[in-house]
């Protein structure tokens, strides 16, 4: 039976989390024992606006199936305005990805504060589910970048 079992699709999901809100939110989710899928790999960034559009495309090139960016709620940025800039950049980038024909559910931005452990875990659960329904990322990969 085990031979017939096809390998289940395990998506690779990259979550860029801001150090001050979302990373602490993820911590809270952990200490509150809220489950979220292990497919989510968190990368801590100092602020959501540290995330260059290139980071997101590079993550896809290297084989990510979904990329999510989490930051402080607008107005709550530790550096006052960082997430406002990130918001404009990501809006344009996501719109461009849609324009060239990439399924638009593969990218997402969510504002998660340090107190929102529940939101963090539900967001991740939802996002992983969404990626499961979209399947493997074939359009954005680059063979040379796979290790």
């Amino acid at each position, binding site marked *: 039976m085990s031979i017939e079992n096809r390998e289940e699709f395990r998506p690779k999901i990259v979550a860029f989390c801001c150090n001050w809100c979302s990373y602490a939110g993820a911590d809270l989710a952990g200490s509150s024992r809220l489950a979220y899928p292990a497919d989510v790999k968190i990368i801590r960034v100092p602020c959501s606006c540290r995330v260059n*559009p*290139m980071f997101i*495309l*590079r993550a*896809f*090139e290297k084989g990510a199936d979904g990329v999510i960016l989490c930051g402080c709620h*607008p*107005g709550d940025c530790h550096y006052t*305005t960082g997430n*406002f*800039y990130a*918001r*404009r*950049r*990501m*809006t*344009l*980038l*996501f*719109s*461009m*990805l*849609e*324009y*060239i*024909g*990439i*399924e*638009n*559910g593969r*990218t*997402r*931005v969510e504002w998660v504060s340090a107190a929102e452990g529940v939101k963090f875990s539900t967001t991740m659960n939802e996002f992983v589910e969404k990626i499961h329904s979209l399947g493997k990322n074939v*359009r*954005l*990969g*680059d*063979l*040379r*970048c796979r290790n």
Partner: protein
Amino acid sequence: MQELIARAKELLADGSVARVLGWKAGDLPYNPEPAYFEKEEDFENFVYDGFCGANLSKYMIEACKLEGKTLVYLKPCDTYSFQELMKEHRVDREKAYIIGVGCKGKLDIEKIKKQGIKGIESISGAEADGPAETLSFRTVYGEKTCSYADGMLERCHVCKGKEHMVFDEIIGESKDTKDADRFAEVEKIEAMSPEEKFAFFQKELSKCIRCNACRNVCPACSCRKCVFDSNKFDSAQKANVDSFEEKMFHIIRAFHVAGRCTDCGECSRVCPQGIPLHLFNRKFIKDINEFYGEYQAGADMEPRTPLTDYVFEDVEPSVVTERG
């Protein structure tokens, strides 16, 4: 053209400018190239006609570092780029003497060749001034003609206007050439299904040979060190596989100039493979207009550009998914 030469010689002679940045005739009747003119006799090769599409404002970044003033000829659309560079402190207004030249639309040799006009020996009707509506070609296959508007660059059909944004003096008459909607092509692609969109860009972008001409010619793309020159970057070079590499390059190239791109159309003009690169830049311009209000880069000296500005009520990135 004679007027431009006479004025340049005058300014060179009285020492108010040290050099002139203009166009010199190339080896073929349709490929003039940007050039410096420092002495009176250099002007023998000076040319300004319908094929002088090159935007000289980018050359001013380097010219402003030289000793003395540089006289530069700028077409109306080039002055947007120049003003954008002034805003970014990449050029020194004091070091430039700008002569705004008239423009009645610039010609695209590739478009003319597509109409079956090949083996061109000489061209008449392409003069920058003058009322000519038709172009006549003497080719090895005989005489051929085509209307001026049919040979025009795509960017001239969606011209931003014939007003110079920044100049010291204006020589020559301009003629309005706008006869198409700037975003029509973008809207056409937006209406396609994701599969069609992907197939369209795959087809266009797989022609890319990564010569970097679009990057090198762009007046907004003027970083001294470019991210795509890094050898640590494993997809910096072209690969012979259907990969995401070209798309990544073109998205990032367009993204790095988003909000600063004046839509001068140089990227599409210089592309040796004829990729419609302006479609990327225009998509960003369209989105910026839609989400953050109408904006034309280079039209003013306002320091806040769409991507260096924000308001609390900005749309959330999820608007893209919701829009469908």
